[in-house]
């Protein structure tokens, strides 16, 4: 879309080059196939090697582990462009980078980092992140998945995880569990569980009407014996998975804008072409107000994410600021997708157009990685000092 507020002037040459390269990839490789992939309910796995070649997995992690070593603004722009294609494509990259590679990078041993990160950057090993359980979503501290240390130092893992993006595709799962007899969330640790370990199974969650071009699965762990070195030694309590979520939510704040931009562009183009009452519908005041509102919210969201990215690069951002950005940008994107769908009239319900696909996807994005409401409570707590969770 046109850069109405000249925000590009605030981006470096590298950041623009990264954005443009991913944009071209999405235009040429994702756009032509994504509508059908969505209808078929399949993640387009054939894109994985190309995304790896481009370098989008863990792009803000260091070069010494085979990653691109980009700053956080460039990383955000990648998420924006991928989600301009589809929230499922961006989710795949978010989970691989921010939720599977990041915890290994942040909490793993040097050996674990060297073993896994280069292969994950290259797309040879796909990861997933197991925190949410059937009965513990917004309250992960209540999780019942448990790892018990054995005499010989190995672990036995039992439990189940749900709503796991990439769960059936992944060769490794980063699984969060309480250890031994720990009751509080201080006893939560991360484990790397490899596909093929006896007792570890996954199955697709059926019947999704959102994120259809994405693999969402249930993971089951039944007396899974893990080697001593499966634990992420630096992980310590609930704050470890929450740090991963902060990374991913930061990317989502940019990604949702990509979906909104796609809907806006589609609506704007349609408004100039679609003739009704003998003139383009873009000439009617009601559609002009719609378009003006969409553009305004996108520009505001872009400025929020860009500023947040600069704070993250300076190392001064807070998880509460990420909550504000995720909450706002996903919310406005859901509204923009719905308004775009309406502007498109009956055509708006077709898979040939993107608006309804984005609209349905964004309902998941609104709900995952901290629901809209939970982020409000995080902000409420930051403002009042009073905890509304318990």
């Amino acid at each position: 879309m046109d850069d109405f507020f000249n925000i590009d002037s605030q981006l470096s040459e590298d950041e623009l080059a990264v954005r443009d390269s991913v944009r071209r990839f999405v235009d040429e490789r994702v756009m032509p196939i994504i509508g059908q992939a969505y209808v078929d309910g399949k993640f387009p796995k054939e894109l994985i090697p190309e995304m790896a070649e481009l370098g989008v997995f863990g792009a803000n992690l260091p070069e010494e582990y085979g990653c691109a070593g980009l700053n956080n603004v460039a990383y955000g722009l990648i998420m924006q462009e991928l989600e301009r294609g589809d929230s499922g494509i961006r989710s795949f990259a978010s989970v691989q980078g921010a939720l599977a590679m990041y915890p290994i990078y942040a909490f793993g041993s040097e050996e674990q980092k060297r073993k896994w990160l280069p292969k994950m950057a290259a797309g040879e090993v796909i990861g997933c992140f197991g925190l949410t359980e059937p009965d513990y979503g917004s309250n992960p501290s209540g999780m019942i998945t448990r790892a018990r240390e054995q005499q010989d130092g190995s672990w036995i893992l039992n439990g189940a995880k749900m709503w796991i993006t990439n769960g059936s595709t992944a060769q490794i799962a980063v699984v969060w569990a309480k250890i031994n007899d720990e009751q509080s969330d201080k006893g939560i640790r991360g484990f790397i569980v490899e596909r093929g370990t006896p007792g570890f199974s996954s199955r697709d969650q059926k019947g999704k009407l959102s994120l259809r071009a994405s693999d969402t699965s249930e993971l089951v762990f039944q007396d899974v014996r893990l080697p001593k070195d499966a634990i992420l030694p630096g992980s310590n309590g609930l704050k470890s998975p929450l740090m991963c979520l902060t990374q991913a939510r930061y990317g989502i704040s940019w990604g949702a804008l990509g979906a909104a931009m796609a809907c806006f562009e589609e609506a704007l183009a349609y408004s100039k072409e679609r003739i009704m009452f003998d003139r383009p519908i873009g000439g009617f005041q009601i559609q002009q107000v719609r378009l003006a509102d969409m553009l305004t919210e996108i520009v505001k969201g872009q400025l929020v994410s860009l500023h947040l990215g600069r704070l993250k690069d300076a190392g001064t951002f807070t998880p509460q600021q990420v909550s504000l950005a995720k909450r706002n940008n996903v919310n406005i994107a859901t509204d923009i997708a719905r308004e775009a769908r309406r502007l498109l009239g009956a055509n708006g319900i077709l898979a040939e157009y993107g608006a309804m696909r984005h609209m349905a996807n964004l309902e998941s994005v609104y709900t995952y990685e901290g629901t809209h409401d939970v982020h409000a409570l995080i902000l409420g707590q930051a403002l009042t000092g009073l905890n509304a969770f318990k």
Partner: protein
Amino acid sequence: MKIAVCIKRTPDSESRFKVASSATGIDETGLKFDVDDFAGYAVEAALQANEKGGGGETVVIALGPDNVQEVLRKAMSMGADRAIHLKADSLPSDGLAVAKALSAELKDQGFDLILFGKQAFDTSAGVVGTATAELLGLPCVTAVSKLDVSAGQGTARRDLEGAGEMVSFPLPAVVTIDEGVARPRYPSLKGIMAAKKKPLESKPAQLGDARVTVQKMELPPERAAGRIIGEGAAAVPELIRLLQTEAKVL
């Protein structure tokens, strides 16, 4: 193999163009610039030739003001090893003047192959590549859609109207590239980061005299509005009559 690729910075071909107030060029405000399309194919052809040959060096060269460094970086982010910026306040519209500066830079540098796009999108002149070959005294093959080089010898395919022509030539040589060679690769994110550390040398261009200058640039006249003469089969006789008598195309 040591390969030079001479590239040009041109506006995105899908832009909407306006003539500048000088009336001798386009208004560049708000336009997005990139490596010229054909030059992009030439960069890809060079990278592939060196990948296939198991090594070598790909050097990209561009002439113009400092903003051409953007396209040199872009070519290095695709994989070119280093870049040379021949600095000039503006790019002359006389292709021979440009070719003189390029040949001054290219001669005696030991290049096995010198590639160009077959023409640039903005001028469609197609002069610089062939003129450079002439100035360097090298064989020149134009508008190549497939290129193979090895052991001092090159073969190329040229697509003609309704036919293909296979040619062979000794190296060193100048080749201008048409679309048809593999599509230019996406600059990878690692490539973009690596390009920042690759050498980009900037030096004054030794331009020849510009004997050709643009006097005036104009957009094609706007087409007159169409006319609807009726609907359905009933309108056909009248349509045919007008095509014969008014448009005189039948």
